[in-house]
């Protein structure tokens, strides 16, 4: 057993070696910060059972009943209703471990069914009417200046109190 199998995968090292071997030259510089922003939950001013939860996914999810259009070349943030049954959704994302797992079960990466259960049980107050889909981008500048502000804008419009983000 290699050392790696007893701890988590080092993706930064692995991808660097992988893409260099593929001839891509300069290594990708993963985003890195020393400081971490923090909004204490107490600042929301209400119990979780009264909170409206926003949801963000990188799963490139689409509706099964929608016509397959061409992908947006700008790859901008888009949203879909959170009250869609998960069996009406599917992921178009290609970048996941396709050898070890699948994206066939939406709730394994976009937990809409369970959030609705938690509403029914009084654990959370509500879920936002729409969730946001953000592409995993090479450009950190785009994520920081275009995508993240758009998600914030939509969440403010939806009066979101707290946010759940699930990265495929």
């Amino acid at each position, binding site marked *: 057993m290699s050392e790696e199998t007893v701890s988590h995968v080092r993706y930064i090292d692995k991808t660097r070696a992988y893409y260099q071997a593929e001839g891509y030259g300069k290594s990708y510089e993963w985003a890195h910060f020393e400081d971490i922003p923090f909004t204490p939950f107490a600042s929301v001013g209400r119990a979780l059972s009264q909170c409206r939860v926003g949801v963000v996914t990188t799963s490139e999810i689409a509706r099964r009943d929608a016509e397959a259009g061409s992908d947006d070349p700008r790859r901008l943030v888009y949203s879909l209703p959170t009250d869609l049954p998960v069996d009406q959704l599917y992921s178009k994302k290609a970048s996941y471990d396709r050898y070890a797992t*699948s994206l066939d079960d939406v709730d*394994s*990466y976009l937990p809409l069914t369970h959030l609705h259960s938690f509403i029914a049980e009084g654990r959370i107050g509500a879920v936002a009417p729409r969730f946001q889909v953000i592409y995993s981008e090479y450009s950190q500048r785009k994520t920081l200046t275009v995508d993240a502000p758009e998600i914030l804008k939509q969440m403010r419009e939806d009066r979101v109190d707290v946010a759940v*983000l699930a990265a495929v």
Partner: protein
Amino acid sequence: MSLAARHLEANGIPTVLFGCARDIVEHCAVPRFVFSDFPLGNPTGKPYDLDMQRAVLSLGLDLLVSASAPGTTVVTPYEWSADHSWKDKVFSKAQPFLDPEATKTWLERKETYRALKGTGTL
């Protein structure tokens, strides 16, 4: 995604991020992180394991409320399989991360993005 979590948090919305790439998320540094030591793809529990998915989401909601400092990681108590060989195979020559069609799409997107950026569209 980590950058988006940081942006929301910096603007007054508490966040919790679920993910399977611990080193990447912690390198970026997010306020609250629920890590599952799973293959990339299922950050909120194994496919079709509803009990696990519910428990993972619950851990995240608990963390949203309980975290008293930024940079808190909670590790879910689940193992993907007794056999950890999937970890060795990730990003290996034997298992190209993207299939040929997805690789082609990825390269085309990069070119499109460069062009849009060059015209100021993005």
